[in-house]
């Protein structure tokens, strides 16, 4: 091929490629970049939802730090996200290694059953668990009464000491199946010869898990952690359906408080500042997770 026609082909390919990118760029710009920049600008303004806006410097940020509910919401969001992510991914990995040993058909059935919670709409999960947690006729309290543990029965979504953990449990139940599926898919890529040769060397399944499987799927485990962490930090609908952030502020999370601050209290600037600070916190936890799980990756 001549140099001229080659460069013409390159140019055509580049232009076509960029042209195909345009719709995606436009969408991303409108859906992510413009709202993010607008949110950042708004965080330095006072706006009540009407037409008048004024610049207030860092006042919105100061108000966020002075707002007791905002601080409580941040603590709840961090606790809810970190705890449910940590437990859900561990449970997901354990389930994946257990299912890996099963035959094709039974493995498929278990995978389907365990993955169903991840496919269910959050609103339905919320309603389902409000029935389970119902203090009078809920499954959980009925079960406790059945086994004679009446004293443990409580109003799970009203008690200050249990409400947040009740939400965390639902978060784990919902997401563990997804982590299991990701890890299981990664395990499918491990050459069977590696496991067979290790067995010949006398390694049992537990040793194979710790010495071969986990190190090889570590990048996917990391991905699961980050993916789950981001999902849990963003959770709005699950908490809303289960508790609406209550009673009081006992289970209020940042997304719920942001909505209240903007649309109930009419303080859009303060809500934007809270959102920006929250984005920094989420980024910090993502970087921390990345650093903690960073290590060698193996090619096979």
């Amino acid at each position, binding site marked *: 091929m001549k140099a001229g026609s080659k460069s013409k082909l390159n140019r055509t390919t580049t232009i076509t490629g960029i042209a195909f990118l*345009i719709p995606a760029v436009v969408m991303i*710009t409108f859906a992510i970049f413009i709202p993010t920049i607008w949110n950042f600008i708004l965080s330095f303004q006072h706006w009540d939802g009407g037409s008048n806006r004024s610049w207030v410097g860092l006042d919105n940020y100061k108000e966020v730090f002075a707002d007791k509910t905002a601080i409580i919401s941040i603590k709840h969001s961090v606790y809810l996200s970190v705890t449910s992510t940590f437990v859900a991914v561990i449970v997901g990995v354990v389930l994946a290694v257990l299912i890996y040993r099963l035959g094709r058909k039974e493995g498929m059935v278990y995978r389907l059953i365990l993955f169903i919670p991840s496919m269910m709409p959050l609103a339905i999960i919320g309603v389902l668990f409000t029935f389970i947690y119902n203090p009078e006729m809920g499954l959980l309290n009925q079960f406790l009464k059945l086994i004679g543990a009446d004293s443990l029965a409580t109003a799970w979504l009203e008690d200050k000491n249990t409400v947040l953990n009740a939400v965390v449990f639902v978060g784990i139940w919902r997401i563990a199946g997804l982590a299991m599926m990701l890890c299981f898919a990664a395990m499918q890529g491990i050459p069977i010869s590696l496991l067979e040769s290790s067995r010949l060397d006398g390694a049992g399944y537990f040793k194979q898990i710790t010495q071969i499987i986990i190190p090889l799927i570590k990048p996917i485990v990391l991905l699961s952690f980050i993916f789950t962490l981001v999902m849990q930090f963003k959770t709005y609908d699950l908490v809303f359906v289960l508790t609406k952030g209550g009673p009081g502020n006992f289970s209020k999370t940042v997304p719920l408080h942001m909505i209240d601050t903007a649309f109930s209290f009419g303080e859009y600037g303060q809500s934007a500042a809270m959102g920006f600070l929250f984005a920094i916190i989420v980024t910090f936890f993502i970087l921390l997770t990345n650093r903690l799980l960073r290590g060698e990756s193996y090619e096979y």
Partner: protein
Amino acid sequence: MIKKKGFKAASLLMLCGLMIALSACGSTKKNNVDKASTSPSVAASETPAPSESAPVKIINVEFYGKIVEFSSTDAMMAEVKDELKDKYKINDIQVDWGNLEKVVKTGIASGTPADVYQFWPQAMKTFVDNGQALDLTPYLEADGGKWKDSFNQTLLDIGKYDGKYYNVPLASNFSLMIVNKDLFEKAGLTVSDTWSWDQFMAANQALKDKAGTPFGFASHGNPDWLFRNGIMSLAKDQNKLEDLAAGKIAGNDPIYGTTLDNIKKLYDSQLWYPGKGALTATMDENKSAFLQGKVGIIGWVASDTAAFLKSAQEKGINAVVVGWPTMGSSDVILGGADGLFIPANAPHPEAAVEVLKTYLGDKVQAINAAAGYPTGNKNAVIEDPNIKKVVGLAAAIFPHELEQLSPKLTDYVEKQILANYVLGGSSLKDVASDLDKLIKEATAAK
């Protein structure tokens, strides 16, 4: 070089794409603004006159006021649509009570609100202060005040701010209680229209002890009504009702402490359904408890009394309406009315007014009254004796409340104060301090 040129061309293309998309977005908004800013009367005059060749332009009216809890809603909306079918296509949207304030504020802030919103006239101050509600006074007073005269004046005045009307009433709405008369008789209790807090507590205990109900009382799903009614009653005893609403009573005043202690006692004594979980029980759970005979008393809402009594009757329960128990010696009830308003930036204000006039007019509200609702339209005839009693109880309504001072105060009073004190272990001092801070913030902002 060629690559660079190609890149430049592609970048230019992308920029053009973005500009087109941006201008498209801008033009959509501009169109909306133009539509909104165009006087509807001008728009109407621009509408081609009906002729064989030019069909009449039908205006789409967004009506955010379909109350599915009212059994009369479908019939009322059908009548309104039928009466106005030649001029308007009315899209009736179901009211989401739990998120109503957010829905309305988001709609107004977005620049594309509904033409009519359901909202409580007693809680309109934020919208009025921000210039977000249309002044309905000229429409009410037109034709010698014909439209104004069709309303119950007390209810209409609830939506009056600084001498102007911003909200028109659909039905009176306030807190009341419904009791199971058979269970009361079994417990040796007599039903009276009004009662004190002590009588209420004694009745709860008697129901549990003598009538064998697991609990005495179920709330409507709004436990804050106990607090709000309690402080109003105690404030009225001291002739401080106006001061309370104006935020002139400090957070450490015994009015608040006494009320909170009374409610905590009710919760701790396990008389309040379902014991643990009483503060978070939903309206449906509470209603079921009453209909299953687990309680003998339920807090309810005036506008939905007819439907509730019908449900009770179907279950063979002899239920009657009584007033809210008073913590002080004075009879005063929180509440006001369910009403409707038109946002200042509504796309079709004139059409919205006409729809409101039809919806709240004699013919449509006769349907509402026949279904047993205490209408704001004074010409609608109410036959049901229980609903007549509801109308009588409305005389004790005082529509101005402390929580109306600011949205933060509303949130604190409705969602936090009871949870913090009854469940969270906060001391009276802590609660008083939080309340006082919010009252001061709200009054300073005025």
